[in-house]
């Protein structure tokens, strides 16, 4: 197991190098001078401009800039944003907020989706199943910002249960509404996936045999139907965690969450190479870790693909 994890970490190195290089190159290739843009309408002082250029290594050729940046990362220095704040500080400020939001959304969509999907699958064709399908279809077809605005209107303004925007520091109670909004789309997918999986598992031979063995329905549903049905659902939900981090951009914007999405968007507009690349690098890292966790989880759920010890 340890050997397997070690191999996976080794595999992650070229992936990280490749993605950072690509992102760095794309930011570099963006038209316009980022420093001039920073000054807006004002004519910049040439001496100041020159100093800034040197400070951010913008006078160096692309490949040198890239390696200087990489070398910095190895020393724990992610560079400095144009506002003078170290990028590592921005990372430390924004990522926890977005990750908190994503975990809350994941929890909501997984627990809710699996429960509703399970009941739907067990009662295929009944009223509960039909309504769950219709509701999930509605959620799938609505754009996330519509759901967000409706949520803000009903729960924030009409009922007054939640704040329409998140206060600084992003406390958990403020994040509940955005988390539900963020969860809504994948939640519908998980309902449908679980439902289909439960229906399929129910008709498998070993379930019939389980009844034949004298087991009760109360035992067969969690032990023999749910566990087997969860395998595809867990894979989907876990890879979706990465999507949640990125997909949070719109939701964060609407609810004014001080998270990754907003900050990254601004950095891209300003052409801040180190900031953009650092954010993407951390995201890639999270993706890789999540993928590894999914694969390990998969082995835990399904012994047939458990990794060679």
């Amino acid at each position, binding site marked *: 197991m340890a050997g397997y994890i070690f191999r996976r970490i080794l595999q992650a190195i070229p992936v990280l190098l490749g993605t950072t290089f690509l992102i760095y190159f794309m930011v570099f290739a963006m038209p316009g001078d980022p420093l001039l843009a920073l000054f807006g309408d004002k004519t910049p002082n040439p001496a100041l401009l020159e100093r800034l250029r040197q400070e951010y290594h913008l006078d160096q050729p692309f490949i040198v800039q890239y390696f200087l940046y990489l070398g910095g990362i190895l020393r724990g220095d992610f560079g400095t944003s144009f506002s003078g704040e170290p990028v590592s500080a921005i990372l430390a400020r924004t990522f926890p907020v977005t990750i908190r939001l994503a975990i809350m959304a994941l929890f909501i969509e997984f627990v809710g989706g699996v429960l509703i999907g399970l009941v739907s699958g067990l009662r295929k064709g009944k009223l509960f199943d039909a309504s769950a399908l219709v509701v999930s279809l509605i959620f799938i077809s609505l754009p996330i910002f519509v759901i967000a605005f409706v949520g803000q209107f009903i729960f924030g303004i009409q009922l007054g249960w939640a704040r329409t925007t998140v206060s600084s520091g992003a406390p958990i109670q403020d994040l509940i509404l955005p988390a539900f909004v963020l969860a809504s789309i994948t939640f519908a997918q998980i309902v449908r996936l679980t439902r289909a999986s439960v229906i399929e598992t129910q008709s498998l031979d*070993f379930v019939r045999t389980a009844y034949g063995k*004298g087991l009760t329905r109360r035992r067969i549903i969690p032990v023999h139907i749910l566990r087997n049905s969860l395998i595809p659902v867990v894979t989907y939900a876990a890879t979706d965690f990465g999507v949640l981090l990125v997909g949070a951009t719109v939701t964060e914007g609407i609810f004014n969450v001080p998270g990754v999405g907003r900050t990254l968007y601004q950095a891209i507009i300003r052409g801040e190479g180190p900031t953009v690349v650092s954010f993407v690098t951390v995201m890639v890292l999270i993706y890789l870790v999540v993928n590894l966790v999914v694969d390990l989880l998969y082995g835990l759920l399904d012994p047939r693909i458990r990794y060679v010890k």
Partner: protein
Amino acid sequence: MSDRITASSDEQAPLLKIRDLQVGFQTTEGVVPAVRGVDLTLMPGQTLAIVGESGSGKSTTAHAIINLLPGPGRITGGSIEFDGKELTKYSEKEMEEIRGKLIGFVPQDPMSNLNPVWSIGFQVEETIRANGIATGRKEVRAHAIQVLREAGLADADKRLKQFPHQFSGGMRQRVLIGIGLSSRPKLLIADEPTSALDVTVQRRILDHLETLTRDIGTAVLFITHDLGLAAERAEQLVVMYKGKIVEAGPSKEILQNPIHPYTQRLVAAAPSLASRRIQSATHESATHALSDLDYAPTSVTEGLDLIAAAEQRLEHLPTTKRPDAIVVKDLTKVYKIRGQGRGASGEVIASDKVNFSVEKGTTTALVGESGSGKSTVARMILRLEDPTSGSIMIDGQDVAPLKGKQLLDLRRRMQPVFQDPYGSLDPLRNIGNTIGEPLHTHKVGDRTSRKERVLELLDQVALPQSLITRYPNELSGGQRQRVAIARALALKPDVVILDEAVSALDVLVQAQILKLLADLQAELELTYLFITHDLAVVRVIADNVCVMQKGRIVEAASTDDVFDNPQEQYTKELLNAIPGAGITLGV
């Protein structure tokens, strides 16, 4: 018909009494009846077999007893009395008390009947706990080990933590038998418990099951499609056809004097029985006067009688020595396998210096259990896999160096038919395109001549021409296998490699296909390499037999010699494993 059974019962009360059982399946077009008035009686400790083809309602009857019918299935009438209690009136809750505890169940396919995500130990232990046989972790565990040991897993204590995929099919079926018998039930329902297994494994498992149930005193309801197997394993037989019982009574009586035409057909078509009869015939006279037996073919069994097929085949057989169509010399295939954990890599010798030749226009059977290497040899001959060493000559031509167009020419002369009639046809191509595809690939003729050839082929394999626009999912298993054979014949090959081509089929369909193969061989002078695990079929179709074990040919001789005078212990085991070997037929 059931009076034969009730007459044989003594004062003892029956354990299971089914009267006028009706089972229907709810569909959008109304209720489709699957079981239409079944009566049967099973005494305590007795074994009763229900025989019939797929769709005859035999499994549905068995499932109805413990209410394991799939979703839309309902008991629509009749009564099932078990130990004096009326089961049809039982609620689901009450039925849970009966299942597993009083009536054990052994399902058909060991591969799909254990939950792949739970360990073997877990699945045995939960049964023991659910039926209240033992309580407390240690007792339950001890009982699980005991149950598995009884079922024939000697190292059960070490294997409890293993998962189903780490067990062979035979071992899994032992686990399922252990589970079925774990609570010492009064009745065991065994639904084709061995039809997915090799014949030798089947024999060992059924022997074991017999001993176990006799010791415990469990009555067995045995479901099978093989009349020979049923007669060997059960005192009483019930033959089902289209949801009804057409004949019932003591096994031997039915076997020796089948009254209903359907039973007659089953007797004629069962390879196990046919091979026995052919065997006794060759013993009594030097000439192959096969049809002078107890059982004469009638119009009912037209096209199904294996003996007639075998005899007819022999008549057409060339008497003079013909050139060899296939010559295999020192054929070896070594697979490298990646080491499991220890970093060591190993080798598996799938085929070890295999030598044999097949005379033109004859049939050679390659026989062995799964894993014996017989399919590997077939794949190498087809050039689907390259041999590690050794040579293959087809019509005197070495196939190893062939490439491009020459290889295509070889493929034209040599065609395969595979086991699974469901997997070997493209579901998105209609039958006409499927059969015509080889013609298209090899650029034979134009559109109209190809279409004519396809129609001709459909005639040859006795399928209606109207099937040309149909799709595989609209066809039965037997029809699909006919399509596969037609496709193989499209290019007028000389050699046909039949890899378990009849193993997945019901006996009646199997008999029809075997007959068809025999007819085609006589008509087209085909050379067959027939790969199978079932020696009974070999008796009917093959001239020569090569018995393979662990990659080697351990015995090679003419079919008569192999059956009359087997040299190797392994061959004897295979012969003994033919169901019905223990039955003395009145011949």
